[in-house]
């Protein structure tokens, strides 16, 4: 499969730079893996990441600046995952009258410690979950996490602290 972007105009009228292939090569795998921390189904993770590329590409070249592209893509992936999780939560409310509060919207049957930890991570509030995923998977500094999520560096610290504290409590409860 050739890695060249389709040669058509985006809505503003400028041609799409032919760097979709290299951007895909550079970021796709890590973004799918990032999404997999938040959403269990891998097919859904890939859809979310593909839609993130489409969203960024059709908004014009400004978002595809080399330095800013990773942050825009990460942000789009997190938005997509959040949207999917909310939709799933609504659907689950109709299907399951008594949800288990220790389970996140995408929790699977617990098979081991890693699954327990991931289930606890997915049960955290949106921002806490995303901050921890960005920090412990991508090892991003606070400033980059802040830029990705559109919040202040102080908020990143707060969400990380609260997220870890809640995670510790929930893991303790599961012992």
């Amino acid at each position, binding site marked *: *499969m050739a*890695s060249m*972007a*389709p040669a*058509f*105009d*985006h*809505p*503003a009228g400028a041609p*799409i730079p032919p760097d*979709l*292939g290299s951007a*895909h090569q550079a970021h*796709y*795998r890590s973004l*799918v*893996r*990032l999404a*997999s*921390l938040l959403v269990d189904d*891998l097919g859904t*993770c*890939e859809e979310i*990441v*593909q*839609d993130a*590329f*489409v969203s960024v*590409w*059709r908004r014009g070249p400004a978002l595809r600046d080399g330095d800013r592209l990773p942050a825009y893509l990460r*942000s789009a992936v997190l*938005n997509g995952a959040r949207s999917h999780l909310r939709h799933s939560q609504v659907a689950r409310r109709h299907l399951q009258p008594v949800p288990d509060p220790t389970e996140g919207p995408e929790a699977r049957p617990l098979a081991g*410690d*890693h*699954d327990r*930890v*991931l289930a606890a*991570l997915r049960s955290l*509030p*949106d*921002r806490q979950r995303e901050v*921890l*995923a960005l920090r*412990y*998977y991508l090892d991003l500094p606070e400033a980059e996490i*802040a830029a990705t999520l*559109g*919040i*202040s*560096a102080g*908020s990143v610290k*707060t969400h990380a602290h*609260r997220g*870890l504290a809640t*995670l*510790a409590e929930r*893991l303790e409860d599961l012992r």
Partner: protein
Amino acid sequence: MTPEDRLRQAIEARTSAVEPSAGALHRIEEKLMDTQRDDNRKRLLIGIGSAAAIIAVVVGALALTGDDDEPVATDGTTTTEATTTSTTEAPTTTTTEAPTTTTEAPFQGVDPDQPVFPDPTASRRFDDPVAAAAAFATDLVGFSAPVVGGFAQGDSRSGEVEVRGFAQGAPTTVLLRQLEDDTWFVIGAVTDSIQLASPASGDTITPPQSLAGMAYAFEGTVNVRLYVDGTQEPIAETFVTGRGDGVLGDFEGELQFSNDTGATHGVLVLSSEGGEDGAPIAAQVLRVLL
């Protein structure tokens, strides 16, 4: 082992087991082409709609003049320009630069019970609702770089514009109405994260005015400002505390103020901050009487 270590190990185990499928790039390209087809379809529909509108206006002008021999070039030209402008600007209104259609019209009276922006006692007026919403967001609420959406028409003289503090931020819905002088005024703004129950829009407030409602914001803090017509600076400021964890929580507070100018109308602005610059990112704004 600490929870942090367990989290790192779980993340490593999960992510290292994930391998994307082979045809992902091809799928993205297909989705982009689908998107372009949709965009082209929309542009075609807008073009057809514009052409139909131009024809309708020209036919209407001819019918009104009742004289087919009378030249209508001036009217036709003006109408064409206006229609083209609105259709080409609509898709690009999600930028921080709002259309600059502000007019310094001679003062014309409007019913002061409705507008929160622009100040009805001043001469500033807007011919364009999106421009009014953008100016409202920066000049009154204090957004530093608002992302302003398109105009969603309600009835023939009213509608809404969504404004965000940043691209992925929660929307503040700005409610607009074309008042007696045919220019656009903001008549209020609402957002999901701040829901003031009392006072309500149009209520008369007296000091000390109690405040009650529900909100969530960073660290729960919602700033409250009171402006009165004819002044640029708030005459009173305070804050109330809702919840900070993304769930609406009750708040109660009190606003002490002194109406030194004897103004009869004011604007209450409740906003939450979230940007690194401390600028508001969401707001509820309502008209109050004094």
